[in-house]
């Protein structure tokens, strides 16, 4: 599956218009219903090359739920801002962790 192409399992005649938030591959047991003994085989069945697709579907699911509805609130922007803050905190953590030992804080 190349960048910008439909997934190979998508068929316009069967599935109708393309929905970027939907997974078109073979249906598997949802993670919440996997028994502990089956966990190893469930993880083995995961498709590691489909991670960019998974990220894309997650992004569109978030958009469908929060940004694209007609009457949205401030929630998506608050989530984005907190996400930004967490990302930058984690990037700069190594520099900031020494501040607690400093006498003068600049």
């Amino acid at each position: 599956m190349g960048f910008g192409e439909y997934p190979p399992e998508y068929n316009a005649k069967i599935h109708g218009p393309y929905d970027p938030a939907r997974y078109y591959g073979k249906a598997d047991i949802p993670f919440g219903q996997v028994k502990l003994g089956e966990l190893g085989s469930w993880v083995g069945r995961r498709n590691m090359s489909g991670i960019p697709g998974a990220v894309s579907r997650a992004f569109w699911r978030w958009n469908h739920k929060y940004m694209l509805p007609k009457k949205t609130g401030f929630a998506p922007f608050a989530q984005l801002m907190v996400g930004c803050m967490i990302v930058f905190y984690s990037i700069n953590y190594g520099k900031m962790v020494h501040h607690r030992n400093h006498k003068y804080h600049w």
Partner: protein
Amino acid sequence: MMANLFSIFEPSSSIFNFSLNWISTLLGLMFIPYLYWASPSRWSLCWSEIIFTLHKEFKALLTPYSLGSTLFFVGLFSMILYNNFLGLLPYVFTSSSHMAMTLALSLPLWVTLMLSGWINHTQHMFAHLVPQGTPSILMPFMVLIETISNIIRPGTLAVRLAANMIAGHLLLTLLGNTGPSMSSSIILSMLIFSQILLLTLESAVAIIQSYVFAVLSTLYTGEIN
């Protein structure tokens, strides 16, 4: 280690000292709404409203020859707006406080305008050096002054944006750093209150400075025709 007061403006992150902090420049893209359905969402309408108002403002300033460039200036405005605004959040890096970024925006713009103006409309550019209604004795001085003001334009555009951002952040940092060692709670509450006021001011400055940058660029574009 935080060596000095300006360490918050350092783009180097703690991951092998790569300058990962510069990704804040592109983070504004995440806030711009998509149009997936036929009827737009609330934020989509809001954003379109802002953009169309700007487009009408810039259309009034540009000559008929360069009307298509409102797209560029509106894009410039939104990029600087998101950069300024996101920089106000805690821990997020302000990339428009660096001359590297502001000069990278203003210098190519100005050089392009000057080159296209002086090569294609030389007579017009010379005429612009003397404003209308100048007494004849003052003309040589006016030419000198206008030339100098023309030359320093990229510098002023860049420095105005960077200095405004740095000044605001510096004030907030200085006020915030006196907080932990404060014993009196009255002064502490005054400090917190003034920080809230400063934050409000900084949000306004963020929006205003991006608008000023875009409008001045539009004016400079309108002058060359």
